[in-house]
């Protein structure tokens, strides 16, 4: 099932001691700024009020609940959120703690605040806390990445693929054509895509985050003209499933990018956009002609499709064994119901995969994390633009995990050589 929510980019102050707000898209052009810290009285009340509202919303508190917990009159909190009353430091500390954030996180001038929750809630019906958490995680990580880019003065290169709205007719046929066209547009030929996260990040310029969260959610997608495509992938899932989620979200980027989505675990949804995205993922990861060719090569001389065939082909494409068999069925290379037959006869197990693939069976063909955000964070830390505490909060990481990541990304001693210096 797909849940859709519109994406909303929030704004930030850009110049010291002014009330000017700028859209996220304008932030990079501003640069500069004060080198000295400023007090609370210098922050625009409407800006801080909006940030407090977003933080309260993320903490899932009503104004009445938040005001009662903070010892404020509800009317006072309303006035603060509307910028009609300046919040005092003691009040700001209390509210920050109540909302699970910090004064620095709320008032740091460069902080970016993106909010998905209100648009999602407009869908109506029961609100699922798991979906809300995933949506918030995506918004937080995008905010973090934009803030890091701004701190480093980096202009992100985007390469948004052409839009291909879903047309009347068979969506699976359109998805097959669109996936082939996108491969041509990217110039990646018809071979297996072994690292779709890097493809999305580096070739398309999407913001991709692989994080561990509730297994009921496979991934999420949102798009904004200012920040581009944003994709969250569940790091708790197996590599081949993560690849499918990434390709599925890519399908939404191509076809329905103006509607943010959350991909839930479970049987495939029946909405046309959902069927399109699944067909697109399958066609993109296992292109028809290449699949037919490899199938012919691997099954040469065989009279039956074996588990070994499935294991080898799935491994070559970096997809799940189920996805591979269903693709063979769709391409009429295997009889309808083949996957169900395997399921009814003890399936195809990881033990069998290890017997066929040996050491390669355990290799993670999809990197466990997206690298770009980590590289930005390491550079910001190296330049002392953010502290360990600020970075840990920004990236929603445990401090020791953050230290380990920073250590891993530290250049080797000999990499400081002039010969390796990048041209400016």
């Amino acid at each position: 099932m797909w849940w859709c929510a519109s994406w909303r980019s929030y704004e930030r102050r850009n110049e010291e001691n002014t009330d000017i707000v700028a859209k996220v898209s304008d932030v990079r052009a501003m640069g500069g700024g004060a080198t000295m810290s400023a007090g609370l009285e210098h922050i625009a009340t409407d800006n801080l009020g909006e940030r407090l509202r977003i933080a309260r919303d993320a903490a899932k508190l009503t104004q009445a609940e938040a005001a009662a917990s903070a010892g404020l009159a509800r009317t006072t909190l309303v006035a603060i959120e509307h910028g009609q009353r300046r919040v005092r430091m003691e009040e700001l500390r209390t509210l920050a703690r109540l909302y699970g954030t910090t004064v620095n996180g709320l008032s740091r001038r460069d902080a970016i605040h993106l909010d998905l929750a209100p648009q999602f809630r407009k869908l109506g019906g029961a609100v699922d806390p798991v979906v809300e958490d995933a949506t918030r995680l995506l918004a937080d990580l995008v905010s973090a990445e934009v803030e890091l880019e701004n701190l480093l003065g980096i202009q992100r290169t985007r390469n948004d693929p052409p839009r291909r709205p879903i047309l009347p007719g068979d969506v699976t046929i359109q998805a097959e054509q669109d996936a082939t066209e996108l491969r041509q547009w990217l110039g990646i030929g018809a071979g297996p895509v072994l690292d779709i996260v890097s493809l999305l990040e580096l070739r398309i310029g999407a913001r991709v985050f692989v994080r561990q969260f509730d297994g009921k959610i496979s991934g999420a997608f949102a798009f904004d003209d200012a920040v581009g495509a944003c994709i969250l992938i569940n790091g708790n899932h197996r590599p081949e499933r993560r690849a499918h989620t990434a390709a599925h979200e890519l399908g939404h980027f191509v076809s329905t990018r103006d509607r943010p989505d959350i991909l839930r675990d479970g049987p495939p949804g029946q909405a046309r956009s959902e069927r399109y995205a699944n067909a697109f993922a399958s066609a993109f990861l296992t292109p028809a002609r290449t699949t037919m060719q490899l199938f012919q090569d691997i099954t040469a001389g065989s009279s039956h499709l074996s588990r070994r065939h499935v294991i080898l082909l799935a491994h070559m494409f970096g997809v799940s064994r189920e996805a591979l068999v269903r693709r063979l069925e769709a391409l009429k290379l295997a009889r309808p119901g083949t996957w169900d037959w395997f399921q009814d006869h003890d399936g195809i197990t990881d033990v069998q995969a290890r017997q066929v693939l040996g050491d390669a069976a355990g290799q993670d063909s999809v990197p466990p994390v997206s690298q770009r955000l980590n590289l930005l964070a390491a550079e910001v830390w190296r330049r002392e633009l953010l502290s360990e505490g600020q970075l840990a909060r920004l990236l929603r990481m445990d401090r020791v995990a953050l230290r380990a990541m920073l250590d891993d990304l530290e250049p080797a001693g000999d990499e400081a050589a002039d010969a390796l210096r990048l041209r400016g």
Partner: protein
Amino acid sequence: MGTIVLDASVIINLNASRIADAVLAAWPGRVVIVEDTLLELREDIRSGRNDAAMVAGLIASGRLTRGTLNEAGLRLFESLVIGPAAETLDDGEAATIAFAAVAGASPVIDERKGRRIGQNRFPSLTFLNTTDLFAADAVQAAIGAAALGDAVFQALRDARMRVPPERLGWVVAAIGRDRARLCPSLPASVRDP
């Protein structure tokens, strides 16, 4: 030695060393942790380290004293957390420095940016780091070289403790060259000279 104020980065290292109680017991002065740092540690329950529980035990036993910012401390805190990202600190780091500045104490903070900003703003304060605690004469005398070497190694290995350049020699001497090779948070030049 006077009063010291511990930042979260230091608490994490002490917890990983497994001798936090002995270090603080040997420290010849009052040891404080501010409310903001306590909250920060309580939030971090997913890590499995349970730093907050260790701190609660140290407070209960009197090794650690809770500190609260007064009016003057709050003003300093405000000046450290509000402003451009490059010139501000997170709440725990800022509160640690603000409390120390008002109390005339020494902040213990391993974070480079925190130390830089703190030293620029409060040049009269003596900023310490975790290795300064381990290397204090009183702590070395109370714990002994072998146990201290094990503790420092555990802080390096399990918490990726940061070591300032001036303490690298002491750290390698304490843990030995073989174990230094196993510590990714030490510079490559020290791990593999």
